[in-house]
């Protein structure tokens, strides 16, 4: 991300104008995609923390184990059968 921002901040005059614009659009697209993906990552983290925080603070091991098992159940289990 830092590299992307550095590339975006670079003065367009440093490069050929058209090449500079194309490179900046490519970098912007990559940055936008990365930001869009943050929604899923953040939602996953919030879900894990929400499910685990209370039993963890309660030091209730059985409930922590149950919460982990429940989180596992909501995972992206692929529709496949193991041999």
């Amino acid at each position, binding site marked *: 991300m830092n590299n992307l921002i550095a590339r975006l901040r670079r003065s367009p005059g440093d490069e050929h104008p058209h090449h500079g614009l194309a490179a900046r659009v490519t970098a912007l697209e990559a940055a936008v995609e990365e930001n869009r*993906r943050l929604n*899923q990552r953040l939602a*996953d983290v919030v879900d894990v923390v929400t499910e685990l925080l209370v039993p963890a603070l309660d030091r209730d091991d059985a409930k922590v184990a149950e919460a982990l098992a429940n989180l596992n159940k909501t*995972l*992206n289990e*692929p529709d*496949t059968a*193991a041999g």
Partner: protein
Amino acid sequence: MANGTDVDIRVDIDGIVVPASLSGAIDVLLDGQRVWSFNPDRDGTGTNGRRTVAWPKVLRRHLDGVSEVSLVDHVSRAVLATRTARFGGGSERVRVVDAEGNPLAVDKGGRLQRDFSNTEDSARDEIMDALEQVMHDLTEKCGLQTYLMYGCLLGAVRNGHMIGHDSDADVAYLSAYTHPFDIIRECTTAIRTMKSLGWKVVKMSGANFKVWVPLPDGRRCGIDVFGSFHIGDSFYVTGSLTGTLDRSALLPFGTVTLEGREITAPAKPEEVLAFTYGPGWRVPNPAFHFDHDPMDVARMDAWFRAPRRRLRFWHDFYKSPDAARVPTEPSAFAVWAHERMAASGEAEGHVLDVGSGNGRDAAYFAARGHRVTALDFTTLGLKQTKALREKAPGQVHVRSMNLEDLRSVLVTGARFAHRDGIRQVYARGLLDTLGPSGRDNLWRFASMVQRRGGETYLEFRTPRSLREHKHFGVHQRTYVDPETVVREVAAYGGTVVHRETGRDLARLGSENPHIARIVVRWTP
């Protein structure tokens, strides 16, 4: 060998050649069974008044033997041409069926599926019962505004029946939210609620899921549940439907009649169908494909599908004939890793085979007495080595883990990290298949599960192999610079304790790639 028909066609193993004048949706029947539909204008190639339409890959695999091939106009049902064709060296009739002998057809997603046209009336009732119950639970138990969508809405408005060439029932819900983060959380909660009610649910993306319903005849029907939402001025329906549709086309909900039952539907179904399928939605077209703008697909991919973006590729790979070309004997790297483990007193220690593929190395470690956990996001490939693993003295546990899915990594990693003992992490060829986010998650996982010790064994192709011949031809591959790996590992607190690069380390058929072997420790 025309059988009294008008249209001049040629059929062989490569495809079907038709006159350029042929247009519209054409059904392909093999010995009377519809197996596929195409549209010559869209799917055909070639000039000089002829168009060649290639067989879909999934169908071509079944083409060995003899069959009467008929082309039928989907709308008028007129038989356009019939030919007896011979494919490959077989002399039996070509059969496009599943393991139980049920007829299959290529669906709009390019997969072989059973479809409603082969569904008995009693099963249709069962599907409708399930659809109503799923819609009831989504509405009442999950609090989602649920309505009939896609093929089911189309069938209901056209003639009150499910569409024969469809293989799934489709419903959607109108999200209460207008930000992807909230929409993902809403969907996660709904999946959890549906599972707690006893439904078999498979998450398909951050904003849609599938409910599998068993049918009395042993088959099962998938009810797809699609999230739909407004963000800014645009209306979106997962998969990738994007455009402008006013909320008044959806709310307040009305009803349509499907198979004799009143089902909740958008306020203006015709507007929703035009939004979904375009102005020609009234004309039946089993060869229909969505022609989404790539920008719209990319947006939905990044919002909701990033964790699954490589899953289908590997799922399909292990279902394809190529899967049989993956060796089942142990790799040279597994032998080398086992010797290193043995030298450090871990000759029978626990090995986590991450990205275990067909399980060839998991079987080897088990044969050497290791306890093994084989982790992969598709466990289909492991069927190939089932017998090998069962014979081995060590136990192999199979678990699903998706390295592109942060939650999967956190939950699976935490469970291993919590257990006592030391375990080795073994990942051969894994970095070749992961993108940067998957690699990031691998370092997170390895550093979690090896917080008490152990080593992470990595073998991968370097960028020097980029343009070289490959055993499996075109494939999804990443070529990571070993320097990048060293840098990323260091950022996660790991230390590289062994590093070598070169050839003759991982020959595969006639391929001899430039390989890096790296061993990492996450403890001092």
